[in-house]
């Protein structure tokens, strides 16, 4: 049996807008991936622990609250601490270009802005996964 790509989609922090996260989760499911959706109001600890227990290949975070400069680095750090530094993290939301640059330099695999075609996200994960497998 071939390896199925497992993805965790989470929403860290306090904003309650999960439409984007759900659209992405559905698109990845339809692309044949197993998507663990953790719902709203997650702490970085909850997301990192869930990602480790579920042994996902990729974590996708949706952040619309402006807390991206805290959330992304913290989750990357926690994943490394838990021995899961190989898990790739990508994100989506309202993230200014200069912040996106800094986050990508800090280890976030990719940030997708508003208006992204879900097929681009599917392709991105497939390509990245092929590299890490």
């Amino acid at each position: 049996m071939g390896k199925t790509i497992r993805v965790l989609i989470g929403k860290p922090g306090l904003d309650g807008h999960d439409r984007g996260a759900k659209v992405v989760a559905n698109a990845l499911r339809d692309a044949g991936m197993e998507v663990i959706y953790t719902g709203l109001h997650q702490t970085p600890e909850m997301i990192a622990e869930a990602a480790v227990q579920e042994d996902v290949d990729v974590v996708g975070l949706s952040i619309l609250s402006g807390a991206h400069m805290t959330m992304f680095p913290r989750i990357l750090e926690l994943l490394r601490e838990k021995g899961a530094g190989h898990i790739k993290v990508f994100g989506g939301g309202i993230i200014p270009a200069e912040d996106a640059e800094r986050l990508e330099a800090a280890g976030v695999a990719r940030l997708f802005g508003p208006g992204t075609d879900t097929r681009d996200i599917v392709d991105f994960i497939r390509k990245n996964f092929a590299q890490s497998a």
Partner: protein
Amino acid sequence: MKRDPDIALLLDEFSRGRVAAAARLITIVENGGDRAEAVMDGVFPMTRGAYRIGFTGPPGAGKSTLVFRMSRILRGEGKRIGVIAVDPTSPFSGGALLGDRIRMQSLSEDPEIFVRSLASRGSLGGISSCTDEVADLLDAFGKDLVLIETVGVGQSELEIAEKAHTVVVILVPESGDGVQAMKAGLMEIGDVFVMNKADHRDAVGAARELEETLRLKDVPEEGWRPPVVLASATRETGIDEVRERIEEHRRHLEERGLLAEKRRRVLYSRVRGAFMDRVERRVWEHESVRSVIERGMEDVYGGRLSPYRLVRELERLVAGGLQM
């Protein structure tokens, strides 16, 4: 079988309690094949007989929420908990949306609770085909109890009955006549019934109706008669009573030697199932078998040979001994 260095390393970390190693081993087991078997060879001797509780019922009955509440109660008793939450795989895309964690969020903060979501991956019995193996892994990882949540079931997804020591069936008053329709299957596998959403105006009536139906069940003297508990998983009422009934059922099984018997029966059927899969594959792909099939099928297609005559020829071939 040669020892995979990667797996040996993971097993070593696993035995030292590393969560990431346990999670990776579960993935290997899920993906099947020789590596999965190598993992199980290492893990099985480490199992300590964790008690397995199944939670099943129709979609939306409140299974995830009840599992979440139950996990918290059990943690309060100092128990270490493994949770296996199964959701369906789409037969069209092969993908799956695993959403049980939404209702178990704060469990992620407790390191003594390990929650793993599994996709059913084509298995039709309401659970994943590797549920036994993942439960073994959690058992070997030091969990005292393994809670298994099935997909939302209808009338025929009853495999949980063969995997769990106690089966909790969760129903809701809204099911109404739907409950009637489900009686055949679900009513036979439940050891404890929960009428969830107890705040619903029809809940008491529905629970009474359920009790009456269960009373008609033919239970031997001193046998277990499944109780019905009114509960509300979201409002947190009745959960303690569900816990007590599960414990009573466990004692019932233990005192009569039925638990040991059940464990033996499960292991026996696992060996049988795994052996049959393997034999089937090897025989079906065997050169001599292939050539008899290919030749014979032409006659079957042409209507000259009965399919069963061909089968008997194959059986004689196998009985005569295949060079494996």
